[in-house]
Every structure is written in structure tokens, then in C-alpha cells.
């Protein structure tokens, strides 16, 4: 019995043992499956990473702290001239650099082992070619914090270096002629000033403009323009020799540093330069002329800065160009005064906008059929704190040149619209009068004009149909779609568009017909002699008839005498404006 029990116990014992073993085996199998799956995923991830590392154009190398290479990607192998399957087993990382750059690599490695390093290194390709690289080196630590391996990722800087060198070259040398460019020229002037201490009056800077370069460019093409310019540079160089430095500082503009010549000799040199260019050039089988204008400035002391000398030479050049080609002008005190005055005025004008120094005057426009005031033209005046009232002719050009016209023009529109509303509120029971304001061509594209005008109308509450916007003919002469689109959008706001000074410029019947125009203003030149000149009368009559045929309104400007008004009335002119009917006056002086 006890034997049986013992056998039963033994059997139970064995069964428990078998159960334990089975359980352990099942668990081992499930762990093995999980590990195999994890391993597969991990291998795939590693493979992906390896593919990326191999595909990158950057050099990726992994090495032991002692420098022995463990892994090197395709780009790295290319540096060493190794194929994909070549072994790197016995190579060290410093094989990537030439012997003279190994010190730099080693010190980078020392820094990497202490944390990390980044900077520039020089690799050497197997053919001996040096490759500048930007590199990052990192030490990777293991279980016990000891460095297991170091990785370096290096990017080829060759292209960037070439690009930087080219940028540097471009800043200092003109591509076309190989001459020094402006930056370099100014440095030479600086050195010239230092050299000429004691004889500064024998140093001068010339700015030379090739008048016909742009014409050649526009008519025969850029290539021909460039060839002409290269030939001009050669010829100038022939005159100057190595005594004076020639530079190209703009599209058709050269600068010359003249050293050790007195005033007379410098003027002689200018004449020789102008003469040299008078002889025709032959470009692409054509004879071309490239007349020059030169501006000269003599050094005025050791405080003269190169930039100022060049600026003044260019101011003199501008004067020479105004006087016509084949000329030179010497910068003098009068030019300096003008330049200074212009600068001052620009400064003042900038402030004028902020300080409310601008005012609008209004000139009446009379309806010839009723003899009543139909509207006014708003004309800007500058109430200068020191110079008094300045007429627009003195400052509008400056505002145009400096871009101040955009802000100024917007201010005029705002004031005009506000005034328009005030007129309507003051005489609600009478026929609405209009206010006409001038718009510069620069405003047309400077900002989102249409939105600006829309806002002005909104804020002022003025009736759009009584706001007239005057533009000179040259705005309409532009044939581009953009001009047309801006004008159409402007017109769709309800404002009326006026062609100012019609007949003075490139009057074209095409634009009068196709552009959204409401009013045509006949230029004063046809009016001033109207009662005496039958030709003027014919022209004015023709314009009036044409404008009426197009169902537009016609205004005659510059009416100063009663007979002129009578003739215009007979001709059926709608509106007139001029001293005979009223000068521009402040709003308070208007006879409403």
C-alpha cells in the first residue's frame, strides 16, 4: 500500500516536473518569437538608417577612440577611393585627412572625447584633392560610461567656398571687364588718399558715363551692349595706362582714380578720354558710337572720404549729362550748394508731412453754360517755417525723385476728400461741386492705390462721383495691362478720372478711347494765345469736338483773359479754369 502511495507520489512529482518544463518551454518559445520579431524590426530600422547614411552626400564615419574605423558610408569611401565592398578593417579615421591636417583632426577628436566638437576640417581625397568640410564629432558612451566609439559627420564645403570666393570676387571685380568694381575702387581711393598726403590737390576722382550704352543695349541687345562696354574699357585703359586706376561701378558707368596730376593735366586727361570714345566702335559688324560724359572732383583735403568723392564726381557727372555728351564737368561749390540744398529740402519735406506744413489751395473751375462754380482743383502748397510758401514746382520733382510723393499724394487725396464732404455738407441744397486732386504716376503702383482710395472714401464719407483724380498723359501712355487694370479698379470705385495737360505730351486718341476716362483737360499752351493764333483755335476746337464725340467732359486750363473765355464758350467747352476766373486760394477765400 505504502509502495503504491509512494509510486503515486512519484508519479505526481513527475507530472508536476513535466508541467513545469512544458510551461518553461512555452514561455521560452514565446520569448523567442518576440525577440525574433523585435530583432527583425530592429534590423529593418538599422537597415533603413544605414541606407540613409550611405545615401547622404555627407561623409559619415564611426571609429574607435583609438581612431580605428568601424564604419564609413559611401561618401566617406569615395573620399578614400574605396568601393562598397572594400574592407575598412585596418584603416584609421585620420586617413581622411592629409598628414599636415592630422593635428587638427586629432585635436577635434580630443574635444569630441570630452563632450563634442564641431568646426571646419580639411579632408583629402585619394587623388590628393583637398576638401574643406564642416564637421560634427560626437563621442558615444557605453554601459560603464566609457567611450565606445566616436562618430563624425562632415559636409563638403567646396561649393560654398567657391561661392564665397565668387561673391568676394563679384564684390570687388566686374565680371564683364575684369576691372575693379565699386567696393574695390573705394578701397583704392582710400589707399590713394593715404599715398598722396602732402599732394592731395593732385588727386581726383572721375565718374564717366557711356551715354550710348543703354541705347545699344535696348536696340541691339545685351550682348552687343556688353561688347561695346568691354571695348570702351579697353580704349579707356589705353588712355589711362597704369598710372590711373579704372573701375566699372555701374551699368554704363566707370570711375577713375587720377593720381599726381594737377587741375590742367586732369582736364587734359578728360579731353583725351572723351576724344578716345568719339572714334566709332565696331561691334558685330556695326559701327557704334559711345560718347562719354565725365564728372570730376578734386580732393579737398585729408578728411575727404572716398564715398564722398565718388558721390560728388557723380553729381558733376549728372551736370555734364544734362549739358550733353562729349563733355566733362568739374564739381564746384555751386554744385555742392545745390546738392546740400537739395538734401536739406528733402529732409525738410520729410518733416513737413509730419508737421502739417503742407496745405491745399483750391482753384475754381467754372461751368461756361451757367457761369457758376462747378468745382475746384486742389493744389498742394508747402508752408515752410523759414522759406514761407513754396509752390509745387519747387518740391514736387524732389518728392517724385525721393519717393516722398507717395505719402504726399495720399495726404492730398485725404484732404481733398474731406473737403469735398465739407462742401456738400455746407450747401446741401445746391448742385454738388467736385474736387479734383492730382495723382503722381509713382502713386499708381507704389501701394495698393485702389484700396487706399477706397478707404479714403469710406473715412471721409465723400461722394465718389464728385471726386476727380487727375493724371498726366504719360500715365495713360503706358500700354501695359497693369496700368489699365489699376485704372479700371479705381474707376469702379465711382471716382472720375481726368487726363491732365492734354496735348502737351504724347497725346494719343487710342487711350482716350480705350481707357476709363471721364474728363480731358486741355493744356494751357493751347489757351494762352488762343485769341491770336488760328492754329491754336483749330487744335482746341478739334479737341473739344473729339472729347464731346466720346461723350466726355472737356476743361480748358490757363484761361487768363476774357476773349479766351468767350472763344471757349463759342466752341462749346464745358469748363474753364485760370487766373481770369480765380487763382488757387485757401478754402476760406473761395467764393462759394
Amino acid at each position: 500500500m505504502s509502495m503504491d502511495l509512494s509510486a503515486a507520489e512519484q508519479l505526481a512529482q513527475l507530472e508536476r516536473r513535466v508541467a513545469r518544463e512544458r510551461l518553461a518551454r512555452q514561455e521560452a518559445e514565446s520569448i523567442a518569437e518576440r525577440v525574433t520579431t523585435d530583432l527583425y524590426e530592429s534590423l529593418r530600422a538599422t537597415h533603413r538608417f544605414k541606407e540613409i547614411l550611405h545615401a547622404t552626400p555627407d561623409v559619415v564615419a564611426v571609429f574607435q577612440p583609438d581612431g580605428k574605423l568601424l564604419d564609413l558610408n559611401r561618401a566617406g569611401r569615395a573620399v578614400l577611393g574605396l568601393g562598397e565592398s572594400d574592407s575598412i578593417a585596418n584603416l584609421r579615421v585620420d586617413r581622411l585627412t592629409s598628414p599636415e591636417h592630422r593635428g587638427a583632426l586629432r585635436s577635434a577628436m580630443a574635444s569630441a572625447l570630452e563632450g563634442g566638437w564641431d568646426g571646419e576640417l580639411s579632408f583629402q581625397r585619394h587623388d590628393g584633392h583637398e576638401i574643406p568640410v564642416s564637421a560634427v564629432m560626437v563621442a558615444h558612451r557605453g554601459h560603464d560610461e566609457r567611450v565606445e566609439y566616436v562618430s563624425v559627420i562632415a559636409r563638403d564645403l567646396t561649393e560654398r567656398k567657391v561661392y564665397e570666393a565668387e561673391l568676394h570676387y563679384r564684390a570687388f571685380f566686374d565680371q564683364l571687364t575684369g576691372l575693379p568694381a565699386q567696393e574695390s575702387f573705394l578701397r583704392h581711393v582710400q589707399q590713394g588718399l593715404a599715398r598722396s598726403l602732402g599732394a592731395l590737390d593732385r588727386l581726383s576722382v572721375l565718374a564717366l558715363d557711356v551715354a550710348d550704352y543703354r541705347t545699344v543695349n535696348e536696340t541691339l541687345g545685351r550682348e552687343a551692349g556688353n561688347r561695346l562696354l568691354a571695348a570702351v574699357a579697353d580704349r579707356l585703359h589705353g588712355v589711362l595706362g597704369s598710372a590711373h586706376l579704372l573701375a566699372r561701378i555701374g551699368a554704363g558707368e566707370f570711375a577713375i582714380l587720377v593720381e599726381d596730376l594737377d587741375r590742367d593735366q586732369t582736364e587734359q586727361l578728360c579731353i583725351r578720354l572723351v576724344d578716345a570714345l568719339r572714334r566709332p566702335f565696331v561691334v558685330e559688324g556695326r559701327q557704334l558710337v559711345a560718347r562719354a560724359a565725365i564728372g570730376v572732383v578734386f580732393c579737398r583735403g585729408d578728411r575727404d572720404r572716398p564715398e564722398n568723392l565718388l558721390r560728388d564726381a557723380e553729381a558733376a557727372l549728372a551736370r555734364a549729362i544734362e549739358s550733353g555728351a562729349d563733355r566733362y564737368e568739374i564739381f564746384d561749390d555751386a554744385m555742392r550748394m545745390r546738392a546740400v540744398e537739395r538734401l536739406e529740402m528733402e529732409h525738410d519735406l520729410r518733416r513737413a508731412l509730419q508737421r502739417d506744413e503742407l496745405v491745399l489751395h483750391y482753384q475754381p473751375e467754372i461751368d461756361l453754360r451757367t457761369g457758376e462754380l462747378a468745382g475746384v482743383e486742389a493744389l498742394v502748397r508747402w508752408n515752410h517755417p523759414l522759406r514761407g510758401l513754396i509752390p509745387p514746382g519747387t518740391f514736387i520733382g524732389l518728392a517724385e525723385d525721393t519717393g516722398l510723393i507717395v505719402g504726399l499724394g495720399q495726404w492730398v487725396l485725404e484732404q481733398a476728400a474731406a473737403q469735398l464732404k465739407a462742401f456738400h455738407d455746407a450747401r446741401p441744397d445746391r448742385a454738388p461741386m467736385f474736387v479734383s486732386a492730382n495723382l503722381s504716376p509713382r502713386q499708381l503702383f507704389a501701394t495698393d492705390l485702389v484700396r487706399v482710395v477706397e478707404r479714403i472714401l469710406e473715412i471721409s464719407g465723400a461722394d465718389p462721383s464728385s471726386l476727380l483724380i487727375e493724371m498726366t498723359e504719360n500715365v495713360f501712355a503706358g500700354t501695359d495691362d497693369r496700368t489699365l487694370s489699376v485704372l479700371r479698379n479705381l474707376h469702379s470705385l465711382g471716382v472720375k478720372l481726368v487726363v491732365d495737360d492734354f496735348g502737351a505730351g504724347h497725346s494719343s486718341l487710342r487711350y482716350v478711347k480705350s481707357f476709363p476716362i471721364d474728363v480731358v483737360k486741355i493744356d494751357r499752351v493751347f489757351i494762352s494765345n488762343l485769341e491770336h493764333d488760328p492754329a491754336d483755335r483749330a487744335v482746341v476746337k478739334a479737341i473739344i469736338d473729339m472729347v464731346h464725340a466720346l461723350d466726355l467732359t472737356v476743361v480748358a486750363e490757363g484761361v487768363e483773359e476774357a476773349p479766351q473765355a468767350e472763344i471757349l464758350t463759342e466752341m462749346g467747352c464745358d469748363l474753364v479754369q485760370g487766373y481770369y476766373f480765380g487763382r488757387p486760394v485757401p478754402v476760406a477765400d473761395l467764393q462759394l
Partner: protein
Amino acid sequence: MKGIIFNLLEDVVTDDHGVETWDRLVELSGATGAYTSLGNYDDSEISSLVDAAAEQLHQPRDDVLRWFGERALSRLADRYPQFFTPHVRTLDFVLTINGIVHAEVVKLYPDARAPLFAFDRPGPDSLVLTYRSARRLCHLAEGFAAGAARHYSEQVRIEQPVCMHRGDDECRLMLEFGMTG
């Protein structure tokens, strides 16, 4: 605790005391008794098994751990000779535990939490191992050290003047080696 430790314990118990003893230890301790080397098991299981062994073999718990470590080491040396053959003496082998042995353990068992020892060498033939672990298995470490000395046919005197079991923050195993005659 990794399953391999349980496997080693089963092996040495079975070798020295027979398979029935292991059966009894499993039953007494209430452990599952089913272990695979790659698996992870609760630390309390090894503790219960050691307690059961102490009771069953009428030995103090610390001695059971020393015996287990010493006997387990010879099995490890058979299974992983690559860790042992580069060295001719215990001291050099022990010094590789952190950097090489445990680094390899992590490769086989990525989730293993191997202890990190600090080493100090007061003399050419002596070594102080500082051990800090919540498992507090310093006596097992003593056994491993003794097993390693036996493997290299060296005498070793092992003392623990500082021990977590006596309220210290860490354990300090002082090993003094001497050649066998």
C-alpha cells in the same frame, strides 16, 4: 531577476542534492518553478527559493548564497569560456565584470539590470569591490568571487567589513588573493 539565475540555481541544487530536493524547494517556496533563461521573474521568487534551501539544507541563508555563487560560477565558466580564458588570475577577470561581462549580459538580455561595481586596489593582490543594489545579494557576489578563484586555482580571503545587511549604505567586499601551493 533573469531566468538564467533560476536555471543556475536549479542546476546546482540538482547536481549537489538531487532533483527531488529542487522539487521540494519549488513546493516549499510556492514559486512556479518554471524558468527559461531569457525570461524575467520577480526578485521575491529567488529570495523564497533561497529561504527554502536554507531551511531544507539546514544552512544559514548567507551560506546558501555563497555556495550557490561559487558552484554557479564554474557552470558559467563552462558556458562562456570567452570571458575567462583571456585571463590567468582572478583579479584581472573580476576587473572585467562591469565593462565586458555585464556589457555582454546586456547584449543577451537587453532588459537585464546588472549591478555596477566600483573597484579599488589597495595592493597588487588585493581588491575592494563596492556593491550597491536594492537586491542586496552581496553574499552571492562573495560566492562568485570564490568560484572565480577556484576557477583560476587561487586562494582568496573574502571579508565584508561594510555590509548593507548590517545597516550600511553599501557593501564592501575585500578580496585578498594568494597562489595555491
